[in-house]
């Protein structure tokens, strides 16, 4: 698993005593990611999750084809933590909220279907929040997923760019297809605005 940190959030100082420097007090917990490709048992995994199988470790399982960069995941997690703090989560758990936040749609069911494990997904990204998972949890992850575990640097090669453009309605760009960085900006912006339009 590879660890990534999440940005610390900002809390505005009281209106009557604004200051030039505001410490960012609460560091967010880190996230741990694992990537699997050529996964063959997605329908089994999906069934086990739906049936509430207790041997499935607590994590977010994401269809890696929908992800451009880790930054996208970091933003979804940061937003989930922020909403949890404010008691404004729309789904039942932090992990489903992460999946939901990836989507520009406010339909929970569609979002989970599109970004979670589906029968058609072949590569999966595992996201865990908090301290480094124990070896026991890690082995449960690798026994759950029948696929080849690869480093996170492989992630960009697994992205389904036309799918991402379609989901985030970014196809109507100035020149048809967009450069990856531009697409990421649209994706992250759409995620941030979700629910506010």
């Amino acid at each position, binding site marked *: 698993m590879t660890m990534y940190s999440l940005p610390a959030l900002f809390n*505005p100082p009281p209106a009557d005593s*604004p200051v030039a420097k505001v410490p*960012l007090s609460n560091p967010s917990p880190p996230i741990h990611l694992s990537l699997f490709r050529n996964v063959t048992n997605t329908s089994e995994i999906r069934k086990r999750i739906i049936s509430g199988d207790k041997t499935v470790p607590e994590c977010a399982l994401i269809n890696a084809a929908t992800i451009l960069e880790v930054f996208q995941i*970091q933003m979804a997690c*940061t937003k989930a933590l922020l909403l949890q703090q404010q008691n*404004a989560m729309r789904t039942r758990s932090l992990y489903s909220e992460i999946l939901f936040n990836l989507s520009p749609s406010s339909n929970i069911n569609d979002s989970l279907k599109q970004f979670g494990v589906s029968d058609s997904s072949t590569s999966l990204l595992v996201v865990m929040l908090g301290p480094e998972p124990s070896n026991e949890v890690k082995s449960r992850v690798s026994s759950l997923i029948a696929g080849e575990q690869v480093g996170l640097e492989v992630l960009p090669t697994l992205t389904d760019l036309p799918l991402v453009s379609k989901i985030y309605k970014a196809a109507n760009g100035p020149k048809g297809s967009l450069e990856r960085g531009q697409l990421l900006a*649209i994706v*992250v912006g759409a995620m941030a605005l979700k629910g*506010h339009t």
Partner: protein
Amino acid sequence: MSLPPEAVLIKQGAEARVYKIPFGATTAIVKERFRKTYRHPVLDEKLTARRVIHEARALHRLRKAGVDTPTLYLLDAAKSLIYMECVEGPTVRDYINAGTLTSDQETTLAESIGKSLATMHELDIIHGDLTTSNMLLREGSNALTLIDFGLSTVSSMIEDKAVDLYVLERALISTHPNSEPLFQLILDSYAKHWKDGKAVQRKHDEVRRRGRKRTAFG
């Protein structure tokens, strides 16, 4: 050694405070719309929340249309915060004031300003505070980046678009001596880049004669 994480206030206006904060591996800008104690609290909360979302939406719509703006990272409506990308690069104001602009560079600059404003107005977004300080030249790509949509509105009226241009004209003339030719180049580029450009340009002539405010009577 890394510095302790803290937000540094970089700008304070009448409506908002702007901070620069470390944001994971990168740096972000946080814009806080603070409460107005002179307003009724309930009204204030509603207005502020609406304006925060409005501003974020303008940033995002422009980005989608291919106008460079800071990338929207995160929205905290409860605390009236917008987290966005920290765009590095000089303001157009500093770029002009450096005084080293060749006439070719000036033409390129005017061309890109005109084009960005045309696309923005085509989306019916009125910036509301067009100045050369609210335009950056992004480091690396040199793309013209529009910032600060805190006063932006949505309107399809030619009048509002013409006034938007007029505000820029006044700002340009008052901050940069002898910039009339530059503004003319911007207008030409603007008119060229969208179908209603000419109509806005004509309206702009009218606004220029009478000033920003329309006469309320007769």
